[in-house]
């Protein structure tokens, strides 16, 4: 499988303190990679750098083989994201938001694409409702529809199911799996829900103190490290980050 995201030796420090410390990893087409770690581990900093809204101190980011620093518009044109802390403008309707972001991403055949996404994410009843008055679950579906508007090769999801009830979360997970399985692109997913990680991700990266401490298959990783569950492994890595060498 070809790589849709290739990160090499990425570092970002604030006031001399590293938030992300020389990490390297890849996301391949059709793959869902979970980025796990305690609060402040550097997950969102990493995602912000991949989105081009935060400049790394050192290292390189390649999206679909294109260097983000050198080809920013082209690389970002193949990327998209959804995050709970980045809601779409609440004073615009679902359809208006999708049209604006479709134009921003230079989507061709935009009206048909919007219609398809409205159907795919069950947004027919809300398409002319302002996003600000939608429930958390509905807003998440709109954010995901926006994240899919340009058929991205790289999809970044920062805790996309954080505010959802179990039924809505399961629906969202199914849609993301469907996206990855279609071979359209790869997904980098951050979450604190270990059940979700085991259920959805093909591979996980444990990030702590800005470094990748562990990497592997979420189904076999706990056993490989002598822990009964992924959650136990997470807690162990989060508590004792400096006793383990990064992989």
């Amino acid at each position, binding site marked *: 499988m070809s790589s849709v995201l290739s990160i090499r030796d990425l570092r970002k420090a604030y006031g001399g303190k590293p938030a992300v410390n020389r990490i390297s990893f890849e996301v391949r087409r059709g793959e869902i990679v979970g980025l796990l770690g305690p609060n402040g581990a550097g997950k969102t900093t990493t995602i912000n750098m991949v989105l081009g809204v935060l400049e790394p101190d050192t290292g390189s980011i390649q999206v679909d083989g294109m260097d983000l620093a050198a080809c*920013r518009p082209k690389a970002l044109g193949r990327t998209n994201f959804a995050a709970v802390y980045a809601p779409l*403008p609440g004073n615009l309707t679902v359809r208006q938001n999708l049209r604006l972001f479709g134009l921003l991403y230079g989507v061709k055949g935009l009206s048909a694409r919007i219609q398809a996404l409205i159907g795919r994410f069950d947004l027919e009843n809300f398409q002319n409702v302002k996003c600000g008055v939608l429930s958390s679950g509905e807003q998440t579906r709109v954010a995901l529809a926006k994240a899919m508007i340009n058929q991205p090769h790289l999809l970044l999801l920062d805790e996309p199911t954080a505010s959802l009830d179990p039924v809505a979360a399961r629906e969202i997970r199914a849609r993301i799996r469907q996206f990855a399985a279609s071979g359209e692109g790869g997904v980098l997913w951050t979450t604190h829900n270990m059940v979700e990680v085991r259920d959805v991700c093909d591979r996980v990266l444990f990030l702590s103190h800005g470094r990748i401490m562990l990497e592997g298959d979420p189904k076999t990783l706990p056993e490989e490290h002598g822990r009964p569950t992924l959650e136990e492994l997470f807690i162990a890595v989060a508590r004792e980050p400096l006793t383990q060498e990064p992989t």
Partner: protein
Amino acid sequence: MTTTYFRPVIAVMLRYCYLLRGTPARWIPVFAWVAIDIVLWGFITKFLNSVVASGLNFVPALLGAVLLFDFFTRVMHGVAGVFLEDVWSRNFLNLFASPITIPQYLLGLVITSTVTSMIGLLVMLALATALFGLSFFVYGLALGLFLLILFLFGISLGICTSAVVLRLGPSAEWLVWPVPAVISPFAGVFYPISILPHWMQFIGRLLPVSYVFEGLRTILRGGAVPGTSLMLGGGLAVLYVLLSCWFFKRVFRHAVRTGILARYSAESVS
């Protein structure tokens, strides 16, 4: 290629169209305040014409100056207002994580402001002509130059103040609105800048708008169009547009480097 380049520009414009269509209150700054200004100053000039026996017609001198200065204010606030919509809706992360470039974004702000400012200008012209008999023929062809200089300087200040808000955080919004009022004493809207103290004259000469109002008074006194002076004002305005674009780009780079952009939803940033 050309169509693709303009898609993000159209997105910035279309967003404001949607907001105008969805919220009637947003029409108020487009024309209501300038209309009120014209009515207020229209009656003041009528009153002055009735009590001052000098024979000077205050309508083209004062009301014309108010109209031109309101146009400049409208352009400046138009650019900053469209930018602030992204601040208010916490849209920076979504916006700047998209492929839009800074020139495309600024072009979107400028075109949107141009359209709304033209609506405001048409309203002012209609009111000033219909209610108070202001004839723009008295300014001759120089009117086009006046409007161009005011437009360019308004654009430059709109971009510059937007950059300041991007750098200092959403709470710096209050710095945007009073800028035209701060400039007006130095710009000589109602009086020649020669009556100002030397230090104020110095600042006034750095402001392109001061050449417009000096030119307006010269024409009304029966003098020739001050071509050199207006060229200087126009040159300064173009220079300020270029400098403001450079400044915005530099602030944006700083915001990306330091993480201000990624954390912009905070009330203020350091």
